[in-house]
């Protein structure tokens, strides 16, 4: 049985932990709202971009030797994986889920005899993968999550991927990140960036659009030039969207994790207080018994 002093110290320390976790929960909730708002504000651009791309790709198909971003290099040997995590921990299984999915993917690709390269985004992913796969890491991006995500972060990452692709160093590029479903649930998912997977729904909706207005689109300059400009932009937009989802998901996950931690702290304070009170009572009883039996002996 722990002494009263020890119990008091433990209760005190859990109380201050609870204060910290509940403050972190509040902060995460406030940040989540902001992150969600910016994720929503970025959606119209991505949608308009998808619509234009579907239109253009439809017009430009059939041409041989399309841009690499759309068609890939024609090979399937070197895979670039981009795990996107937060810079800071204390957000439950949020980062671990991405790590696990990435690791599974790496193992699967390697067992198929493919070469895997890594470009971790976020300090957590960098630390995790530099332990086991440090020889696969070709580049890194840190310091983008947490604060408001600037578009320049996504565009520089997009340019990097594009440069690697043009140099023929990678054939396929895939993002691994947490899809934001709601504040409680984030689902880790892979999204292939290169070669571009055309969204079926987008293509269909644009097809029905064009059926409505019969006239064909004119392009200025020609389709190929426009496509060559639009594709890198689309890459950036997709990366930007995933960065925003990660930012929102991180705060959502942290909010949930901290809520649980606060509740657990409360529970252990309760049980420790019970032990403390009982110990105190036992001590008093013992003292009384000693006094009484002493008095009786006289």
């Amino acid at each position: 049985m722990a002494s009263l002093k020890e119990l008091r110290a433990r209760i005190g320390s859990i109380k201050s932990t609870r204060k910290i976790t509940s403050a972190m929960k509040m902060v995460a909730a406030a940040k989540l709202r902001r992150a969600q708002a910016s994720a929503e504000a970025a959606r119209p651009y991505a949608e308009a971009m998808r619509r234009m791309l579907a239109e253009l790709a439809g017009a430009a198909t059939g041409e041989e030797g399309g841009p690499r971003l759309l068609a890939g290099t024609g090979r399937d040997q070197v895979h670039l994986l981009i795990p996107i995590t937060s810079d800071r921990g204390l957000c439950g299984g949020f980062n671990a889920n991405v790590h696990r999915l990435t690791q599974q993917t790496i193992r699967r690709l390697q067992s198929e005899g493919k070469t895997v390269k890594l470009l971790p985004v976020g300090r957590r992913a960098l630390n995790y993968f530099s332990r086991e796969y440090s020889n696969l890491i070709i580049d890194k991006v840190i310091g983008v999550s947490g604060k408001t995500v600037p578009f320049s972060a996504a565009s520089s990452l997009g340019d990097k991927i594009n440069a690697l692709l043009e140099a023929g160093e990678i054939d396929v590029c895939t993002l691994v990140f947490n899809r934001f479903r709601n504040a409680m649930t984030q689902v880790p998912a892979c999204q292939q960036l290169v070669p571009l997977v055309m969204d079926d729904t987008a293509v269909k909706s644009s097809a029905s659009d064009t059926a409505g207005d019969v006239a064909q689109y004119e392009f200025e300059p020609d389709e190929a030039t426009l496509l060559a400009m639009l594709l890198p932009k689309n890459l950036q937009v997709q990366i930007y969207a995933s960065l925003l989802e990660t930012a929102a998901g991180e705060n959502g996950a942290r909010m949930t994790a901290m809520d649980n931690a606060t509740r657990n702290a409360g529970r252990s304070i309760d049980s420790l207080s019970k032990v403390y009170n009982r110990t105190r009572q036992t001590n008093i009883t013992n003292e009384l018994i000693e006094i009484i039996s002493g008095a009786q002996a006289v």
Partner: protein
Amino acid sequence: MPIKVEIISPEKVLVSREVDMVVMPGAEGDIAAMPEHAPMMLLLRGGVVSLYENDAVTDRFFVGGGFADMTATRCTILADKAEPVSEISIDNATAQLEALTEAWDKADKSDMSRLDVLQDKILAVRAEIEAGSSH
């Protein structure tokens, strides 16, 4: 009959309303979107997008390059960067221009694609300064 114009930057939607005419800086020359215009997709250079209502300019926005998607009833402008002309910071733009000019001087003159990119950026920033100072 009005046309619906949307100016969208990656971060947010700047404008979404109905106007009579939109004049925008196409890569191959300025172009106006009016109702019943043939559907068209074009590349934009850095410059000013003007919204017209009743034959007068009601709003001017600076866009730093991007794309436009025109149909008979709407005009969607996807700008890399967009802001109202009244909010342009000339100091910022001048600093950018200096940085770009330096990059131009250092750049490998045989790398045409890099030079092209730099040139487009320099032209866009010059257009920004011009738009900001004419305001």
